[in-house]
């Protein structure tokens, strides 16, 4: 970028790291001889993965009760009778949950259905008070979306540069209560989470590598964040994934299993409740290898549900087989009328949809002059919070400078990303929107753009702001003597005369030879710069006055 080279201690770039981590995965297969063999073996098989993602919606109420969905640490404080399945209580659909849900579906390029319905999915578990979960099985909220993954999202080489993942449907559903294991025989249940609004995003089986599977989940999360549909991600348990994994021999066309309308697949297994990007990738890889082992040794894959736990990394374990599979007995909920969503509502939300990361990336590069790497870094910082702050600063500048965004954009970007980033890293500080007021930051950049601050002074000013000084930027610059005070013409005149006098022979050479005596002119200029006030003298003006004074005689 313009002003300063990239500092060594660049700020945390989560997305880059994630991408790097993802691409490291593809080397795993190659690190040893044993792995080389495995790699060759892998080339004979095709892995297919379909993913179901459950994400907590960013909404203030539950799906079917007026209880608050805000976090509280008082157990069961946010539970209405319906959340506890008290007999005689009834579901009351909260239309507000539709805003984040529709946004999410739109960002995933889905068709919002004019009519959708709610069904009951039955199973007994202590975190499910009614004995069923209300979901949308037969007629979901949205269908037929897609999402594009590129290498920037962490695709491996095998995936090629760009793949499109189909989204089968997006549906609304209830979250379960939270269980806390007390001891071997006691579990405490907190129903605050019971009935929270979730969306389930079901992908088509379009993923073919563990890296792509993880990249897909990562990308869905970043899209949900970007459009404000979700605020808690995998790290905080707000997003969970179930993966369906199958393999088939590439030269074998007899595979005849299918799901979500995609056929010719091998028998699949499902791994439930993965709660990190890494576990998605690792579980898919482990399950792929297990299935290949079984098939190569002449066995068959059972349609079953498998588990993945951090305590036994590297292997999936059988939870229940097909015969033990739960029959959910989906039934339309007789208390809840169908949901009709007017196309105008959808259009309104579409028009006001916040941009997804890809759009932001394009915008930063095209309008603000960012490089892809810097744009990605900015997008990944503070869940997009830094980007908003950045845009605030540029907006403040535009008002006053009436300047083109791309020039200032780069300049501000440097401050936000690198100068401030370096400060955050060295002081081990967490950025937050109140750390430095965007208006103050704009003032700082503005001062510098008007040549009223030199680079070093501007950096000192930033540090002062960073340390919490509440004075205005102008005051600080003034009172701390940071303002750049250009020398007057008279001062230049006097200084030039003094230098010429002290170095008369060099001056003569310049006078006689004019432009050919460039070296001597530079020498004189150097003298001027050295003798003048470092903070006030400008090389261009000094050179100009020297040229005037030493112009060839008669010219």
């Amino acid at each position, binding site marked *: 970028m313009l002003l300063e080279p990239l500092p060594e201690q660049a700020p945390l770039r989560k997305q880059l790291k994630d991408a790097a981590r993802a691409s490291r995965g593809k080397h795993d297969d190659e690190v040893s001889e044993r792995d080389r063999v495995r790699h060759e073996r892998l080339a004979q098989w095709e892995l297919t993965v379909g993913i179901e993602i459950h994400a907590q919606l960013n909404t203030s109420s539950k799906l079917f009760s007026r209880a608050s969905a805000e976090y509280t640490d008082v157990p069961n404080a946010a539970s209405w*009778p319906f959340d*506890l*399945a*008290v*007999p*005689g*209580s*009834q*579901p*009351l*659909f909260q239309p507000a949950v539709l805003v984040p849900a529709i946004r999410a579906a739109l960002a995933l390029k889905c068709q919002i259905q004019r009519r959708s319905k709610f069904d*009951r999915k*039955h199973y*007994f*578990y*202590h975190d499910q*008070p*009614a*004995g*069923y979960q209300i979901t949308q099985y037969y007629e979901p909220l949205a269908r037929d979306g897609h999402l594009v993954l590129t290498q920037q999202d962490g695709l491996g080489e095998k995936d090629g540069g760009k793949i499109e993942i189909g989204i089968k449907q997006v549906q609304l559903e209830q979250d379960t209560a939270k269980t806390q294991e007390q001891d071997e*025989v006691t579990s405490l*249940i907190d129903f605050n989470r019971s009935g929270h609004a979730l969306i389930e995003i079901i992908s088509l089986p379009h993923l073919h590598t563990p890296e792509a599977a993880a990249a897909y989940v990562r990308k869905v999360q970043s899209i949900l964040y970007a459009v404000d549909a979700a605020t808690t991600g995998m790290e905080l348990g707000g997003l969970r994934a179930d993966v369906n994994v199958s393999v088939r021999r590439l030269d074998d066309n007899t595979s005849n299993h299918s799901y979500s309308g995609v056929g010719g697949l091998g028998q699949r297994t499902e791994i439930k409740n993965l709660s990190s990007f890494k576990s998605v990738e690792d579980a898919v890889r482990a399950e792929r290898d297990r299935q290949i082992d079984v098939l190569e040794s002449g066995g068959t894959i059972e349609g079953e549900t498998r588990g993945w736990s951090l305590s036994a990394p590297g292997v999936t374990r059988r939870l229940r087989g097909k015969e033990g599979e739960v*029959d959910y*007995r*989906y*039934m339309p909920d*007789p*208390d*809840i*009328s169908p949901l009709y969503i007017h196309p105008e509502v959808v259009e309104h939300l579409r028009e006001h949809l916040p941009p997804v990361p890809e759009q932001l990336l394009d915008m930063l590069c095209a309008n603000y002059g960012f490089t892809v790497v810097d744009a990605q870094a900015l997008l990944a910082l503070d869940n997009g919070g830094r980007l908003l702050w950045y845009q605030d600063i540029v907006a403040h500048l535009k008002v006053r400078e009436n300047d083109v965004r791309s020039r200032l954009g780069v300049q501000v970007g440097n401050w936000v990303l690198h100068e401030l980033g370096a400060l955050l890293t060295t002081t081990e500080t967490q950025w937050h929107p109140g750390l430095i007021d965007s208006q103050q930051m704009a003032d700082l950049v503005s001062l510098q753009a008007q040549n009223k601050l030199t680079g070093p002074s501007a950096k000192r000013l930033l540090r002062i702001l960073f340390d919490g000084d509440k004075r205005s930027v102008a005051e600080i610059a003034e009172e701390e003597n940071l303002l750049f005070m250009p020398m007057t013409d008279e001062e230049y005149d006097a200084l030039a005369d003094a230098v010429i006098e002290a170095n008369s022979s060099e001056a003569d050479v310049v006078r006689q030879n004019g432009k050919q005596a460039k070296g001597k002119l530079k020498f004189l200029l150097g003298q001027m710069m050295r003798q003048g006030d470092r903070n006030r003298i400008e090389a261009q003006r000094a050179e100009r006055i020297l040229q005037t004074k030493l112009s060839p005689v008669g010219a």
Partner: protein
Amino acid sequence: MNPAATARRLKSPGEIRRYSTIYHDRLRSARGTRAVLSGLENLVLTGSPYPSGRNIANDEVIVLKDNFLTTDLPTTCASHILEGFRGSATSMVGRLLQDAGIHIVAKTNMDEFGMGSYSTNSARGPVKHGFDSLEQSVGGSSGGSALVVAGGLARFAIGSDTGGSVRLPAAYTGILGFKPSYGRISRNGLIPYANSLDTVGIMSTSVKDAISIYRILNKHDPADPTSLDLNSRARIEHAKLSRSRVPDHAASDQVSVRVIGLRDKKESARLSLEAGMRWKAYGRQYFTKRSWRIGVPDEYNIQEMHPWIRIAWLKTLSVLQDMGNDIVHISLPTTQSALSAYYVLAPAEASSNLAKYDGVRYGIPRDAELADNHEGVLYAHHRGQHFGDEVKRRILLGTFSLSAGAMDNYFIQAQKVRRLVQQDFNNVFTVPHPLLEASTGNPEGVDFIVVPTAPTLPPLLSELKHQSPLDSYVNDIFTVPASLAGLPAISVPVVADDDLPPTSDKNIGMQIIGQFGEDMPLLNFVRDTVEAIDPPRPRETDSRIWTARRF
């Protein structure tokens, strides 16, 4: 219950007089009804009546079936599994009644969760007239409520009707049982058996009483997602206007009539205009029709019908005809399948609704030792232990019909049949179904349908012991169609033969069914016709209800 009937059952006429006197004295005394009711725990009621010390007159008390939430009395649905359960809020029905100054004094016994036709499937023991197994059944599942009214212990009672649970006991005990249109009365705080069929029912001896209670309860409740909203209610009012077509010549005349309550202002204005035209064309007569077209569906004339019931049916129809109404043959071809559909859908919903009873949060707590056995079964033991046989049977039925392998053949089929049943009714009624755009009403159709409430007379309790569950299901054949279509229906007591003494073994109910939303026209029709010929007799207390226990 007529004193004459009691007389034959009891040993000497002197006894009856004595009991009746005692009852009437008590009733007149300060704590009348409550004192009498307090002797009826487990027999008619599921617990002690409300223990307030205030004087309450008979006119101001009501009893609720034990599936309506009350805060001061437990609500158990007559099930072990809900033993000691108290709601945190009173049901909407209870609140509306209390707001109207009516006291809820007791909760009445019933078939567990409403599942049964004779009020014998109760954790509290069966509801009986007395202790004699040669007694007639009171019907179910709102048997306790029916008996309280029939016995003159309270003027009104609230029941719930899923497939006939208010109408059948009303027929068997010789009182009125009214099931309003689905969604008319809030179900909030009514513990569901099958949500899409459950309705709040009113039991009384006179239709005027039923109307006054209905007026109190007929309100939109935003807390019940299936409660008819104001817009739907306005559409119902509008649908009535289609009894007659607007003649073209009336179109130019305008009379100021306003249709209110519609959210859509334009729609409201249009309907007002239309109503004005009708008013102009037909005047008052249009809105207060005096003669009606009565439908008699061939499919209800089944072989199994008891002869007395057929006689009573014919008699009712001929009296209606004599009053100037037209009797019209109609066909409801899906009637035969309706019962099967009902016994697929209701248990399916029940199996889902009853999944919440796990002993963790309310009701009788589960036994920690057996809570989670090595097979990983969480609640099976608890549910097996505390649900009654009929409830378990229907949960199993429902679980099966919803299972992946059976869903298409049972649940989906039953839903289709349900739609056909609704279509059957829409094809024969003059008034269109107000909430279905496609329904236009049949100009040659009928205003009401009159059929018996049940094909049988009240059976003896001793006979029921030998009945299979299927036999008892068959008895709901006449009540289930109106439930599937959500239509208002009322069971009115009639007599087979004026010469026969009206004893409890010959109680017969005649059921009148109206188009969806036609609750008031239905009640008014009953008031103007049936009650006009056979005014309700003042109830004498049926001494058997309480004597057996107290003396």
